């Protein structure tokens, strides 16, 4: 079991009702982690509508998550 922190922004923050949480998981990849929290909160986004970041870096969906990681799922951006 790994303990990680997940930070939420924008629409994901609104749906989850929080801006971050400590989360325990047994999944291996960031993709599997998203499936787990998507189910938990009923997120509306599919993988192809998001990006993932671990420890302030964009990562590929296959990237493994490690104990202590800070993970962020990034909904469609709209800066500028």
């Amino acid at each position: 079991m790994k303990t990680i922190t997940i930070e939420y922004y924008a629409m994901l923050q609104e749906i989850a009702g929080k801006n971050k949480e400590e989360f325990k998981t047994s999944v291996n990849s960031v993709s599997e982690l998203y499936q787990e929290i998507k189910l938990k909160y009923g997120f509306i986004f599919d993988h192809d509508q998001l990006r993932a970041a671990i420890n302030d870096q964009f990562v590929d969906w296959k990237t493994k998550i490690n104990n202590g990681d800070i993970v962020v799922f990034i909904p469609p951006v709209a800066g500028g």
Partner: protein
Amino acid sequence: MFSLTDSPIALDRCKCALIHSQCGAYVSFEGWVRDHNAGLMVSHLVYEAYHALALKEGNSILSEAKKKFEIESASCIHRLGDLKVGEIAVWVGVSAPHREAAFKACQYIIDRVKLSVPIWKKEYYVDNSHQWINCEHCKHHEVIS
């Protein structure tokens, strides 16, 4: 340098930092808050950022621009928080020996910022509805009243 601010962007100070005697051209872009979007009248909007990654990605874009175009300096500042119609949401400035590179780099930077920096915009409309921008294509998205 790419930076985020909660305060109105100080344009003169931003420009000064880009002045170099070897540059003959300065090009800037200002993104303003518009009063309408997709047929809806905007009352105000709110920008939110994943700060650490926004700064990393923004600075990475400026480095890319410096490698890609013959420019001397480039800078970008993005506002966060509540903005009213007419306020400046983002400023990009580029200085270069010649104008062609300055124009191209400026466009490159704002296009890349809009595509990849983790900043989100929530628009509020005069009918009291609101929505997160670019989530229009998401499943079950709706304008919330």
